[in-house]
């Protein structure tokens, strides 16, 4: 199963439509968490989906999937790295009204190339990348530790203890 997630705040039609069109001819099933849709939002025809998954179900989908497909959000990136799942990201673009600013482009640029993390420059690149990553999954090499870097934790603790 492919788990598609675009966060919970805003829809991301460009990504959902591209994955849905790919799913129309693919044998691999897709499940999508599509965020809070508006009446005008794209509603996929070739996958199961929900607007919002409770935390436990979300974790189950991440654990069960073969590939995650997501916007370039930190929640998705950290989930994939923690579960050691390959992740294909399409960054949201503020210029297309998909976010407040272009930080997802920066995030994608910073994280692209880490083992297991893959970026599609635009929706036209998605189908070929989906096929390639399913044929040869490239997952993160080691699970992310459960906590922040020791230096950061020490700095926060020093501040808390005054």
């Amino acid at each position: 199963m492919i788990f598609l997630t675009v966060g919970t705040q805003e829809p991301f039609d460009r990504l959902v439509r591209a994955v849905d069109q790919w799913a129309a001819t693919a044998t691999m099933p897709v499940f999508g968490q599509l965020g809070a849709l508006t009446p005008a939002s794209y509603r996929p025809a070739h996958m199961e989906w929900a607007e919002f998954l409770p935390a436990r179900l979300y974790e189950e989908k991440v654990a069960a999937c073969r590939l995650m497909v997501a916007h370039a959000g930190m929640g998705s990136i950290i989930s994939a790295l923690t579960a050691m799942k390959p992740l294909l990201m399409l960054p949201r673009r503020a210029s297309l009204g998909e976010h407040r600013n272009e930080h997802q482009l920066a995030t994608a640029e910073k994280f692209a190339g880490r083992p297991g993390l893959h970026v599609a420059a635009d929706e036209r690149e998605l189908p070929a990348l989906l096929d390639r990553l399913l044929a040869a999954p490239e997952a993160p090499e080691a699970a992310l530790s459960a906590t922040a870097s020791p230096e950061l934790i020490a700095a926060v603790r020093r501040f808390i203890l005054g």
Partner: protein
Amino acid sequence: MSGSPRVLAVASAGGHWIQLLRLAPAWDGCEVAYATTSADFRDHVARLAASRGQPAPGYHVLTDANRWQKLRLLRQAVEVLLLLLRLRPDVIVTTGASVGYFAIRFGRLLGARTLWLDSIANAKELSLSGARAGPIAHLWLTQWPELARPGGPRYEGQVL
């Protein structure tokens, strides 16, 4: 300050919240309350605390709001203020976004010490809320060394 300060760890649900929880060892031994915009993670923070041998933390749910929802933002601000008046935290730690901004803004007025950790998502420039909250926080951190500057945020490491 006594050996066990009251800490409020606050962030909106989603990526900000996941980053906040990765800092949890920093407040071991403190009297901890969490606040976020979803009721969904109450069990998770209780399990997280238990796994570190810590007592069950407080958990408080705030109204969720995005950039379009001005009325909900107002309601969120009032809820944050009321929560701070009730909990009277010594220290506030936040990773964003608007709930964190409100917590720092009101927390300072109430005498709390405040920490803003800018999201690791902001790799090229600081977030809008970070640019507003950071300068008024007692400690302002970025997760990218190239964004650190004198009079601005410091770099002390990443949540990854």
